[in-house]
C-alpha cells in the first residue's frame, strides 16, 4: 500500500470528520443564513425561545432514535404524549400531593404502554410498524373515551407545576434543562453502557446478537420503555404549558420526531444512529421553523418546508455513502 504523506492524511481525517458531523455544519449554515438576513434571530431571547420550543419534540425524538437504533419504529409516541398530557391535567395539580401525582401517573401509564409495545415486539418479533400503529389506535381511542372527546383544563395549578414548562433557572427555561438532561443521559447510555452496545448489536443483526447471547427481547423492551418515557415527559411539559388541552394534541409528533431523527443521519434499518446528531436534527427543525416565523410565513408553509427538508435529507443521506460510525 502506498504510504500517504501527513498532509493528505490530515485532510482525509478532516473530511471524515465533516462526513460524520455534517448535521452540525447544516445547523451552523442555517443559523448563519438567518443571522445575516434577520436582525432578530441572533438575540439571546430568540435563541432561548427556539430551545424552549424544540424541547418537547426533542425529548420525543431522543427516545425515538434509541428505538430506531434497535432497528424498530415507534409510531405510538404521539399518542403516548397525548395520554400523558391528558392524564397529567386530569390529575388536577392544585396542591403538592396532586402535583406529584400529575407527574408520576402519566409517566407510569406512558411507560406501561411502552412496555406493552416492547413485549409484543420483543417476544413475538412482530413487525414494529404494525404493532405501534395498532397501539396508537388503542391509546388514542382510550384517551378520547376517557375525556369524552372534550377539552380538559386545570385552573390554579401549583407554581411547581407551572415551573415545569414556564420556569427559569439562571435565565434558561426549565424544559431546556430537561431536554439537555435527557439527551445527555441517552447519549451516555448509548455510548458508555452495555445497554447501548446491546441495542446497537440488535439493530445491526438481531439474529447474530441473539446467537452471541444478547437477551434481545429484554433490550427491545427497555428501548421501548425509554421511548415511551421520553414521550410522557414531553406530554407533561406540554400539559404544564397549555393547561387547556385538546385530546388530539399529540397528533403528528411521531412524524416530527422521525424527521429530526432522519435529519440526524440515523439509519432506518437500525444499528447506527447517534443521540447527539438527533439533538442537532431537532435544533435544525427548530431554527428553520423560527426563521419562517421571523419572516412571517404562514404556518401551513412551515409544514411544506418541513416535508421538503425531510425528503431532501433522506435523499442526500441515501445517495451519499455515509462513513462508518
Amino acid at each position, binding site marked *: 500500500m502506498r504510504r500517504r504523506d501527513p498532509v493528505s492524511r490530515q485532510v482525509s481525517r478532516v473530511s471524515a470528520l465533516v462526513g460524520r458531523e455534517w448535521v452540525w455544519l447544516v445547523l451552523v449554515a442555517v443559523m448563519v443564513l438567518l443571522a445575516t438576513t434577520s436582525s432578530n434571530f441572533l438575540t439571546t431571547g430568540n435563541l432561548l425561545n427556539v430551545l424552549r420550543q424544540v424541547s418537547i419534540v426533542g425529548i420525543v425524538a431522543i427516545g425515538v432514535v434509541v428505538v430506531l437504533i*434497535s*432497528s*424498530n*419504529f415507534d409510531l405510538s409516541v404521539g399518542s403516548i404524549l397525548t395520554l400523558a398530557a391528558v392524564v397529567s391535567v386530569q390529575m388536577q395539580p392544585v396542591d403538592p400531593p396532586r402535583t406529584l401525582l400529575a407527574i408520576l401517573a402519566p409517566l407510569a401509564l406512558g411507560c406501561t404502554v411502552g412496555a406493552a409495545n416492547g413485549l*409484543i*415486539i*420483543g417476544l*413475538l*418479533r*412482530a*413487525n*414494529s*410498524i*404494525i*404493532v405501534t*400503529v*395498532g*397501539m*396508537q*389506535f*388503542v*391509546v*388514542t*381511542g*382510550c384517551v*378520547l*373515551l376517557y375525556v369524552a*372527546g372534550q377539552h380538559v383544563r386545570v385552573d390554579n395549578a401549583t407554581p411547581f407545576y407551572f415551573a415545569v414548562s414556564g420556569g427559569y433557572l439562571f435565565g434558561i427555561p426549565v424544559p431546556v434543562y430537561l431536554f439537555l438532561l435527557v439527551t445527555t443521559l441517552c447519549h451516555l447510555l448509548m455510548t458508555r453502557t452495555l445497554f447501548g452496545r446491546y441495542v446497537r448489536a*440488535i*439493530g445491526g443483526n*438481531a*439474529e447474530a*446478537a441473539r446467537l452471541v447471547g444478547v437477551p*434481545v*427481547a429484554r433490550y*427491545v423492551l427497555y428501548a421501548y420503555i425509554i421511548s415511551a418515557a421520553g414521550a410522557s415527559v414531553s406530554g407533561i411539559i406540554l400539559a404544564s404549558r397549555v393547561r387547556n388541552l385538546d385530546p388530539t394534541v399529540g397528533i403528528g409528533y411521531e*412524524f416530527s420526531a*422521525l*424527521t429530526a431523527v*432522519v435529519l440526524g443521519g440515523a*439509519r*432506518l*434499518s*437500525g444499528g447506527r444512529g447517534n443521540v447527539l446528531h438527533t439533538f442537532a436534527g431537532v435544533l435544525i427543525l427548530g431554527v428553520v421553523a423560527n426563521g419562517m416565523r421571523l419572516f412571517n410565513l*404562514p404556518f*401551513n*408553509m*412551515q*409544514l*411544506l*418546508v*418541513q*416535508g*421538503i427538508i*425531510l*425528503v431532501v435529507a*433522506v*435523499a442526500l443521506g*441515501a*445517495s451519499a455513502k455515509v462513513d462508518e460510525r
Partner: protein
Amino acid sequence: MNSRFTTLLRRRTLWFLIVLLVWVSVLGQGFWSVANLQNLVVAVSVEGVMVMGMTIVMIGGGFDLSIGSVVALSGVIVVKALPLGKPVAVVLALVAASAVGLANGTLITRLRVNPFIATLGTMVVVRGLVMTYTNAQPVPGTDPAFMSLGRATIFGGFPLPGLIFVAAFVLSHMLLTYLKIGREVYALGGNEESARSSGIATDRLKMLSYAICGFTAGISGIVLAARLNTGSPIIGENTALNVITAVLLGGASLSGGVGSAFGSLGGLLCIGLLGNGLNLFDVPAYYQRIAQGFLLLLLVVLERLANRSPQVSTRTVADGRPASGEQPSAGAAGGLSS
C-alpha cells in the same frame, strides 16, 4: 401447535369476516335496512378503491403513507377546476394524484429512499401544498351536478361509488392474477434481486405501482369531494393507516410478495363491518378506533404464533394467496430494511 390450527389461522381473514357478519347481521338492529346497506357500501367503497391500489404496492414490497394527503389534493383540485368542466376537472385531479405517485416512485427507485420515509415526506409536502393553496379553508363546490358522482344510485339503490369500487376490484384482481405484470409484482415483492436478474424492469414496475396507488387515491378524493360537495384540505388524516390495516388484514405482509385483491377485499369488509356494527350498537366512535387497534395487534400476534409452528409451507408466487402467515424473520421485529 398442530397443522390444522395453522390452516385455520391461515384463513383468519375469512374467519374474522364470518364472525363479524353473523354478529352484525343477527344482533344489529336494522343491519338489513336499505339505508344502512347503502351506508356500508359507500363507506367501504371510498377506502376500498385505495385498498386495491395499496394492495399492488404492498405485494411489490412497498408502502405508501401519502394517500391521505393525495385524497385531499385531488378533492381540492377537482372542486377548484369545476368551472373548466367536469371531465377536465376530473382528469386534472387524477393527473395530479398520479404525479404524486410517480414522485414517490422516483424517490424510491432513483434515490433509493426507504419507502416508509419517502412517502412520509411526500405526505407532509402534499398536505402542506394543499393547506397553503387553500389557506386551510374548505373549498365549496359550485356545480350541483358534480355531487351526483358521489351520491347517485343505480340499479334501483346501489350507490355509484360502490360501482367504482367494484370496477377497481375487478381490474386489480385481473392485473394481479392474469396479467404478466401482476406476476412480476409478486416476483418483485418476493425477492427484488432475483426479479431483477430474471429480466424484470423492477424500477419501472415500482414506479408504475406507486402511480397506480396515487391514481386510486385520486379517484377516492374525487368521490369524497363529490359526496361532500366540498374540497376539504384536512380530509384523509387517518386514511393511509386505515387502508394499510385493511391490506394487512387481507393477508399481505410489510415485506412484500404475498397478498391478493380477494384477501384485501376481505380485510376491507372486516373493518367496514366492524365499524358498521359498532354504529348499529350505538357504541361511541372512540371504541371503533380502539377495536381497530386491537384488531391490528391481534393480527400480528396470530401471524407470529402461526409462524412459530414447525409446519412451514412454501409460498407460491403463482396463485398469489397468502401461504402460511409468513413474515421473513428479518430483524428482531422485522423492521424495514432500507
